[in-house]
């Protein structure tokens, strides 16, 4: 790789990560990662969701212990067994979720983290040093304000001040702009530049290409737990970075037969909805989904996919526009009504949204249908029918479970996904929303899920396939729709599309000729 920055001298690095491997029960989160950070640089850690960025950062911060590999800090090999160890070394981290006491003031929250404060708090001293810090870095914040009265952006400043107060040499920011407005982000970037000019090193985790280009000196790209490369930002274009991030390798091929698509089943017209924080998440989404069709929904996480699916399922209110199934308006129907209209849902967060893991496998296989025949007989549940149905599902979907009565929480992720497929397919939906249906699964199960989806397509189902894995979309979909910041950027027939083009649109770059 001509553009790689080769290490000239080991001692110039503040932090060095060598062959770091971290495994979790289901996944290899980091596979022999090498990375180094120089003093005074902003180093972006770029990758899609699940690429292993956060895991790597948490290993450096001592929250996780790597299974293999070595971390060197300021020229010495270190074993960082806990976050407090990391802080002592001079490594600070600002998480996506803040750890602040809402009823305490800014000064009190900073003082709270100090180990050397002794029995008596010297708040004046803390405040004085904080004022100096704010002046140094040009941060404007009311130090006496209570956390609960501050905006999310301001709270992030408090987290950063906390880290600075501890005298960090390396600051890790985990997707800091996710909660910020564009103006707040600009302000953050200015301050970060000021920090690095004073010798601080910053690891900036993101999946937004625009930010990488704007703020970083170098960028390390991860994909599916593996290091792609570390490059100097100035040598790269957005398109090149997008390609590195999304990747090109195809895991395996599937036989997708050509099928003439049928009638439109699901129609979405000018759909608007807000996210959980009340900001606009969908800005006028329109599309149609046909029988015998898989429509891919490509996009970087957090661009409205979650809100779109939730609105379609009926758990999120549409603020404008309409949704139709078979020509019938379902915009403001309850999840149950939508389900009865023939909409199935494979959620991306299967544990949280798709299962009751404390329930048995048999009970999970009828979740949502507990009031319907054949599972209800008169006033009561019909255990024989429930077990009969469950046994059928377990057999035909090859769900590995000790017994039908075993709690779902003891099943592996792949088997849980099969359980959801069995349940949702069993309801014979006309429309199927599959959100990240293969995330975190083993290759064998992925292939199985793909075949099942293609079979449903053959049977006449209309399938919306949201995936961050572009290979999955290329392999399965008939058309692909790209979403960015709550808007549909474009829709293509899959034969006509180049993966680079999708990558650019995902990043919000409309002029695909560059």
């Amino acid at each position: 790789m001509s553009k790689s920055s080769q290490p000239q001298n080991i001692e110039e690095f503040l932090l060095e990560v060598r062959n770091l491997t971290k495994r979790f029960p289901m996944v290899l989160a980091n596979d022999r990662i090498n990375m180094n950070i120089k003093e005074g640089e902003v180093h972006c850690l770029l990758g899609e969701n699940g690429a292993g960025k956060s895991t790597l950062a948490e290993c450096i911060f001592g929250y996780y212990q790597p299974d293999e590999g070595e971390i060197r800090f300021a020229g010495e090999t270190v074993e960082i067994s806990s976050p407090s160890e990391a802080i002592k070394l001079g490594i600070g981290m600002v998480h996506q979720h803040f750890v602040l006491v809402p009823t305490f003031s800014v000064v009190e929250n900073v003082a709270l983290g100090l180990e050397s404060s002794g029995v008596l708090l010297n708040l004046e001293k803390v405040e004085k040093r904080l004022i100096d810090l704010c002046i140094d870095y040009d941060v404007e914040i009311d130090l006496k304000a209570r956390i609960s009265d501050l905006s999310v952006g301001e709270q992030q400043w408090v987290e950063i001040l906390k880290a600075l107060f501890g005298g960090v040499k390396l600051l890790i920011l985990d997707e800091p702009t996710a909660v910020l407005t564009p103006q707040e982000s600009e302000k953050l970037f200015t301050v970060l530049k000021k920090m690095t000019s004073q010798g601080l090193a910053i690891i900036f985790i993101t999946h937004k290409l625009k930010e990488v280009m704007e703020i970083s000196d170098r960028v390390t790209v991860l994909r599916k737990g593996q290091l792609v490369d570390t490059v100097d930002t100035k040598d790269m274009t957005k398109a090149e970075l997008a390609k590195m991030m999304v990747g090109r390798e195809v895991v395996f091929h599937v036989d997708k037969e050509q099928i003439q698509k049928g009638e439109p089943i699901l129609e979405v017209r000018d759909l608007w909805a807000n996210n959980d924080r009340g900001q606009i998440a969908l800005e006028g989404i329109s599309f149609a989904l046909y029988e015998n069709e898989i429509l891919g929904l490509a996009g970087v996480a957090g661009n409205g996919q979650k809100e779109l699916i939730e609105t379609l399922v009926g758990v999120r209110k549409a603020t404008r526009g309409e949704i139709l199934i078979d020509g019938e308006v379902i915009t403001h129907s309850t999840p149950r009504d939508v389900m009865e209209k023939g909409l199935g849902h494979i959620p991306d967060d299967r544990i949280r949204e798709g299962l009751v893991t404390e329930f048995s496998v048999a009970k999970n296989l009828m979740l949502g249908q507990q009031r319907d025949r054949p599972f209800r007989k008169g006033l009561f549940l019909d255990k024989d029918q429930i077990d009969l149905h469950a046994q059928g599902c377990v057999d035909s979907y090859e769900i590995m479970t000790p017994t039908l009565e075993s709690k779902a929480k003891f099943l592996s992720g792949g088997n849980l996904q099969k359980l959801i497929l069995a349940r949702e397919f069993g309801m014979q939906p006309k429309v199927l929303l599959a959100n990240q249906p293969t995330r975190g699964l083993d290759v064998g199960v992925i292939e199985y899920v793909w075949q099942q989806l293609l079979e449903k397509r053959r049977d006449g189902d209309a399938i919306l396939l949201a995936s961050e894995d572009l290979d999955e979309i290329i392999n399965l979909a008939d058309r692909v729709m790209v979403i960015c910041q709550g808007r549909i950027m474009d829709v293509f027939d899959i034969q006509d599309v180049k993966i680079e083009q999708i990558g650019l649109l995902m990043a919000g770059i409309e002029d695909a000729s560059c």
Partner: protein
Amino acid sequence: MLIPFLNLRIVRRQHETKLSQILPVLLALLAAFIVSAFLVWVSGSDVKVAFIALWEGAFGNTRQITETLNKAAPLILTGLAAAIAFRAKIWNIGAEGQLLSGAIGAYWAITTFPGLPPVAMFIVILLSSFLAGALIGLLSGYLKTKFNVDVIISTVMFNYIITFLLSMLVDTVYRDPESYYKWSPKIPEVAQFPLLLTKYRLHAGIIVAIVVALVIYLLIEKSPVGYEIQAIGHNPTASNFKGINKSKTLLFVMFISGGVAGLAGGGELAGLIHRLRIDFSPGYGFTGIIVAMLAGLNPIWIPLTSLLFGALLTGSLKMQIVAGIPVALVYAIQAIVLLFVITAEFFTLYEIRRD
């Protein structure tokens, strides 16, 4: 988590068995017994004498057994009230207030329709006490669904409101003009629950309680609504995605939970106390929580755990007389049992392994 020096590690259980669920509870009871014995010993009494007195006071003769059953009856009902709510992870701590409301409701119905024949009166008492308790439960549920008021807070606050309402009623509209005490006149004989045995105070309340236990068992474990209650308790997000209406379920649960606690009040009024008074309940609503926890929130076990706590309450009298141990010790034992049972819950989920 690693326990240093001992090389022991606490890990999540990979499978659950009947034994891994029941054994910790039995051990908790044993531990509570040992600690209680220690308390008795510290207070200077003979441990053996005290516990024999406790046993005899609860089960020594027919009179004491019937008294124990009379105490178990309201505990079964308040225990069921706690169990159904807790299964949905709705923390109804208001069974005490709902019980008192049930008693007030039943008293109102009895004094409003005094001329009813016995069977009709029996039904009216059950209905009115259920509805009066259910109303209070429903109010807390409404505050939660409409204004997101924490259920723990609102139910606890209703306990105070109903307690003071009762104390106001027995001092004003319902005050017995012929008595020095602040209590209401006795309810007419037609409204009093039939006695099950001659010469003893054992009344029909225990039968009502056991029937209700059976109904609640079927509701929670065997019906679609019970399935939904448990689903919401375990995973409200997935339940929402799969079309289970959280607000409706919450209102339903609070209605039934409050109603069942209200039945306990109606039963006490018509079966035993026969009038409203300030010290109407010795905290049955709160003891019901412990009873339910000890039964693992399973309605089928609640009559058994209620019997245990009923026995503690009746037996404590004899223990006081024979061994000179204050009745307060019984409340200490109750609390100790609760603490150990909560601790035991940890061991149904985790196990300790040697590294």
